[in-house]
């Protein structure tokens, strides 16, 4: 290989640099399809709703009574349907009817429970709890070790706040799912309604005295404090109950079995769990129902067995509807295969390309 000595002033031939060949940029769906003009309106509506709800929460308290909750959910959903086709609105009306009927039946079941006259369970849940905890009453043990009537500890605040999330978490979940996907909403509500129906049936057939009642009225437990709202109010928060609640108050004090607080606390995370990717976040989310049940037991609101039965019903509801949905998918897929003669893999592979 010959070497050439270059001197100052020599001209050097340099290969021209070819311009970089970049693949053509293909337009995205977003750039081709015009924007939905109502999208911004809905976003603005949601922003206004969140501000108004927060202001109400700070000024008047957390909305607790079912009718006020129903109204706030309705407003949220209407905002989510602004600018949607008429058919979606028709579905909304139908959904609202089903939703209202579900809650009406739930409230009515309390009256049925009173009229049905099934024997009140007082000793059985206590005995089961004692069996589960080697002869100890968990309500009593928790209050003895952690409850101090003169001091509100941090865990009182955590427990009380957890208790009150029952009034907003499921509702927020329902509203968000309702607005984002009607299909997912139907999946959610099938499970939710099943849980409510079975729970109501149990309230009628198996009226159960909660621990605070077993203590104060039947004296089968040492004195229990019912200090549910103490931690919540110590944070400067309060619950908002409108006056119409008193007219519609069919409260059933002996609806302890199953615990819907525990059930809902598991239900919402369980529904969204497949959407959560990080395992640590899944673990945290699954701690929530445990914290809820511990809080309920600590406040003397429920027996442990109430919470366990609530969780079991959630599990059964998910198992049943999961099975039902898989079955439906299989049947539809089989019909499609049969109609097009696609059932046999060998047949399909033999089809010439």
């Amino acid at each position, binding site marked *: 290989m010959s070497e050439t000595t270059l001197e100052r002033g020599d001209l050097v031939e340099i290969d021209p640099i070819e311009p970089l060949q970049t693949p053509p940029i293909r337009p995205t769906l977003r750039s081709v399809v015009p924007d939905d003009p109502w999208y911004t309106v809905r976003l603005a509506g949601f922003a206004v709703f969140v501000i108004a709800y927060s202001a109400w929460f700070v000024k008047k308290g957390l909305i607790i009574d079912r009718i006020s909750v129903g109204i706030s959910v309705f407003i949220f959903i209407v905002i989510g349907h602004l600018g949607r086709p008429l*058919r979606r609105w028709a579905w909304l009306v139908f959904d609202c009817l089903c939703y209202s009927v579900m809650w009406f039946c739930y409230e009515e079941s309390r009256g049925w429970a009173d009229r049905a006259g099934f024997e009140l369970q007082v000793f059985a849940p206590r005995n089961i709890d004692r069996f589960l905890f080697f002869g100890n009453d968990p309500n009593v043990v928790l209050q003895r070790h952690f409850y101090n009537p003169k001091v509100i500890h941090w865990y009182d605040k955590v427990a009380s706040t957890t208790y009150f999330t029952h009034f907003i978490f499921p509702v927020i979940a329902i509203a968000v799912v309702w607005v984002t996907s009607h299909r997912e909403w139907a999946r959610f509500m099938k499970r939710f309604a099943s849980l409510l129906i079975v729970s109501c049936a149990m309230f009628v057939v198996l009226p159960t005295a909660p621990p605070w009642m077993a203590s104060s009225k039947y004296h089968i437990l040492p004195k229990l404090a019912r200090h549910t709202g103490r931690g919540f109010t110590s944070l400067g928060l309060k619950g908002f109950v409108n006056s119409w609640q008193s007219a519609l108050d069919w409260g059933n004090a002996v609806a302890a079995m199953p615990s819907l607080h525990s059930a809902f606390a598991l239900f919402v995370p369980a529904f969204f769990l497949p959407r959560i990717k990080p395992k640590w976040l899944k673990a945290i989310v699954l701690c929530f129902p445990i914290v809820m049940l511990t809080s309920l037991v600590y406040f003397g609101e429920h027996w442990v067995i109430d919470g366990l039965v609530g969780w079991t019903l959630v599990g059964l509801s998910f198992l049943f509807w999961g099975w039902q949905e898989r079955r439906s998918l299989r049947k539809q897929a089989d019909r499609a295969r049969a109609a*097009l003669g696609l059932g046999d893999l060998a047949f399909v592979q033999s*089809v010439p390309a």
Partner: protein
Amino acid sequence: MRVRPSQVRHILLDDSFINALLATDAPQHDAACQLYRTLVDNYQMGSDRLYGLSTVLGDLPTEFRRNALAPLIRLNVARQHRVAAARMSTNFTPAAALSLVMMRRERVKVVATAAHTYDALDIEVLSVADAVPMTVAEPVPVVGADADVVGGHVVGSDVVAAAAVSSGSESTPVPRSTDGSSPTEP
């Protein structure tokens, strides 16, 4: 195996794909059936969710709709969707424009098709259009001014039109050399 909801593919079966499924004499019928079988298997496993437009499904025989297309979720086309489709570029046929509008509004990311309509877009396309080779049976005697002759095949506006008619779809753009010389055969 359980599928995470975020991994579920939402797939629109467009009119050309459904027509290819329905018409047993269509050139892409076998390929469409084969792809549809895979989609139905995935649907059963929960990894794919299949959609069809109400404008397309409404025109089909009820028997076919209820059985062969049982897995399809109906996307109802409303007036606002038609208006949005009408406002779109004229590069798309009205049916394709409507499909694209519905895909965006319903967050459907994938389209199964028997045409080349969506090739120019940055979306996932499951196409059976290439299953039918675009060959010309006889040389076209009259070649347009913008046509080229490559390896005995005529590639140009007339042939593109002929291929589009024969396969019921639009043509694939012919690859062109970047140095400005005549196009090479694919």
